[in-house]
């Protein structure tokens, strides 16, 4: 049985802040910081937006493109995020209710730093392939936290994408997925803590680069392919620099990663990053295009996917929802004061 993506939807809040504005606040060269990270602006959630609203919007766009799918046939819904609004009370139940998939389904929240969205895709794929469910929904979304003044504040942003996984009318077949996982404490956030901590440069070589290159090489070996066999490649994008470098390490060219590289314009959407990159690629992809994906989640692990776009994408009602490019249009820039208000960083009476 072929299993793959039946539909997808993407959502990014409209607000943006520039690194020079964050730098102005903390007395550092924000523009230089942005240049170093290859992040020229990042998305900011509106004051009434969180992972639940972002996931719902992405999932509703996903459903709008497949009006022939009855939401009651969705058998599983997973939301991967590290910024679930509740510590206890699932995001997934609210999103399930909002797309009218309840009550005959299993639902859960996943967390694996920046790769919980792709972990959900793997779970859905397994359940569809084993005939446990007809459709599964995997969502990766975040309103990522970065401590004020920390390097992460220049990148941590908001957005998400939803994927309907099934075996009928698939627009992209998942040929293979595998993962590479170790215990690597490069980035973490303890229970009750508002901001994560990270190991600085330790987040690079032994963490991001080791896991992505290992999972990527394992996938190329198992599939008997080379980077030249893929039209597009998407890597986790905590900034613009890392995915560009890791693509080179694996032998991919810049033009293979350009379409799915959104971080320079929206920042690091954490669990939403690779799913949004994949949505941007599917917006442009044609039948037969092969896509190479490797996500990364601190802690640490990488999920790699080999995907082929099918002829079904020609019949797919893509225009029923906005493309990633359209979603990113007409941003509204905010200053640091509004940013802190939107992010709920101002302590209010009784709060």
């Amino acid at each position, binding site marked *: 049985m072929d299993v793959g993506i039946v539909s997808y939807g993407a959502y990014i809040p409209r607000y943006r802040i520039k690194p020079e504005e964050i730098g102005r606040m903390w007395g550092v060269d924000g523009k230089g910081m942005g240049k170093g990270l290859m992040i020229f602006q990042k998305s900011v959630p509106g004051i009434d937006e969180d992972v639940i609203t972002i996931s719902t919007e992405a999932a509703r766009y996903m459903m709008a493109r497949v009006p022939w799918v009855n939401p009651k046939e969705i058998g599983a819904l997973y939301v991967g995020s590290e910024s679930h*609004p509740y510590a206890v009370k699932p995001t997934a139940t609210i999103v399930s209710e909002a797309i009218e998939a309840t009550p005959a389904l299993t639902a859960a929240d996943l967390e694996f730093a920046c790769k919980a969205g792709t972990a959900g895709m793997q779970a859905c794929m397994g359940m569809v392939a084993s005939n446990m469910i007809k459709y599964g929904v995997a969502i990766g979304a975040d309103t990522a936290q970065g401590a004020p003044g920390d390097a992460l504040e220049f990148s941590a942003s908001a957005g998400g994408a939803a994927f309907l996984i099934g075996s009928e009318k698939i627009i992209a077949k998942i040929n293979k997925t595998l993962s590479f996982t170790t215990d690597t404490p490069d980035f973490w956030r303890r229970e009750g803590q508002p901001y994560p901590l990270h190991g600085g440069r330790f987040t690079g070589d032994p963490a991001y680069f080791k896991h992505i290159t290992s999972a990527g090489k394992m996938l190329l070996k198992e599939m008997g392919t080379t980077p030249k066999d893929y039209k597009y490649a998407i890597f986790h994008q905590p900034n613009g620099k890392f995915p560009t470098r890791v693509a080179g390490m694996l032998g991919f060219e810049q033009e293979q990663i350009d379409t799915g590289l959104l971080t320079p314009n929206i920042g690091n959407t954490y669990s939403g990053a690779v799913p949004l990159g994949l949505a941007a690629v599917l917006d442009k992809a044609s039948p037969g295009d092969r896509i190479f994906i490797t996500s990364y989640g601190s802690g640490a692990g990488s999920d790699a996917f080999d995907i082929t776009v099918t002829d079904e994408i020609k019949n797919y009602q893509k225009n029923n929802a906005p493309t990633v490019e359209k979603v990113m249009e007409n941003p509204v820039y905010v200053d640091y004061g509004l940013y802190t208000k939107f992010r709920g960083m101002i302590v209010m009476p009784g*709060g």
Partner: protein
Amino acid sequence: MSSVARAWREFPGKYNLEGTKCENCGTIFFPKRDFCPKCRREGIGKMQKYKIQREGEVFSFSVIYEAPACNSALKPYAVAMVRTKDGVLVSGQLVDVELDKIVIGMPVRAVLRKLDEDGAAGVIHYGFKFTPIK
């Protein structure tokens, strides 16, 4: 703290604009009603669930400068009466819009947003607001 049970009963309306329709006279009600005030006893037992269309246009609007405590961080903000595609008037907040660009007849659609929360430890209330159609 508001009633969790009451909020829960309102989820279908708040999330998915579920109202009711009187199968006797065809009138649509939102929020839902259990009894048709037009048909009275002839409408008893004939009220069916009816999902209002999520898209519509601004019928009228107002910009709020003095807000209740739950919305004080949002001000100034706009509220609108929206005529949905199936002709029902629904009121809600307008978001992601420049206040000076709102016009009567503007196409909008309902999205899910945070409405309020019962303090830092209580439940978060979600429901529809309207945003311009891209």
